[in-house]
């Protein structure tokens, strides 16, 4: 398993933990403690845990004498990033258009909604990117073995 695969797997784990913790917290705040939905949404603060996925790239540093990246790795990385953005765009457009249908053309949304759109977009990009990297190299990790 090479550096990109390890990074991708680590990112996926961090994302899954962040999302699970957020959802559990929102559920606990709403249904156990009886907070209103608006207050319970504060549980999504745990989504910021996804920053951990970029905390220490040095832990994935390659120790072998082989060059860390060749053309194939760069091609896979580029393809994965483009796939991630192709997935991100429709979701982002849906999130932008949903309030139009919910609140009508004269409606208004809080500025925090824009913040959630940007964060959700980053979440989608990083998740799809990691999945695409793992998919491109193959699940067994044999293709990018180091």
């Amino acid at each position: 398993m090479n550096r990109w695969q390890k990074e991708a797997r680590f990112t996926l784990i961090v994302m899954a933990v962040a999302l699970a913790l957020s959802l559990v917290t929102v559920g606990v705040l709403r249904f156990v403690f009886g907070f209103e939905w608006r207050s319970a949404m504060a549980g999504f603060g745990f989504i910021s845990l996804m920053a951990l996925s970029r905390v220490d790239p040095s832990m994935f540093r390659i120790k072998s004498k082989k060059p860390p990246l060749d053309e194939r790795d760069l091609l896979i990385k580029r393809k994965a990033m483009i796939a991630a953005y192709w997935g991100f765009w429709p979701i982002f457009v849906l999130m932008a258009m949903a309030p139009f249908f919910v609140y009508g053309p004269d409606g208004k949304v809080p500025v925090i909604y824009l913040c959630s759109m940007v964060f959700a977009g980053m979440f989608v990009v990083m998740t799809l990117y990691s999945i695409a990297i793992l998919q491109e190299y193959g699940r067994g990790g044999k293709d990018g073995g180091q």
Partner: protein
Amino acid sequence: MNRWQKIAWFNLVIIASALLLSGAAITILAILAGFPKALGGFGCLGLGGLMGLSPLLFRKDKSKVSFDERDVLFARTAAFGGFCASYLFFVAFFVTALLVIGVNGSVSVSALGIMVVGGYITHSLVWSIAIIVQYGREGRERES
């Protein structure tokens, strides 16, 4: 000049026209009717929809190979640059809204539509520039 370069130049002309017309319309409406009515000038950005015609205007030539590995690399790099730029545009839009309106403020639903259109135009603009820069401005590097 190959097909992608033609599409890139076409997109650039459309985007420049749409931005210029929007700027002019907003300025004229601001003088005549004031804000926020002048923001209706953003409607001229709809001209950007003409970019959707580019695959029809510049059709593939089936008689010869028009796309090799180098073209694929250029196209991927340009798409990557475009996507990154559009994401930065979204972040900039959000930060600007946050600074101008405040944390507890709210934005019109139509602003979200403008944000998406702006992101699309940013993507197309950076994609077109990246394609033109990679092939070379004169179009000498890739004749077809």
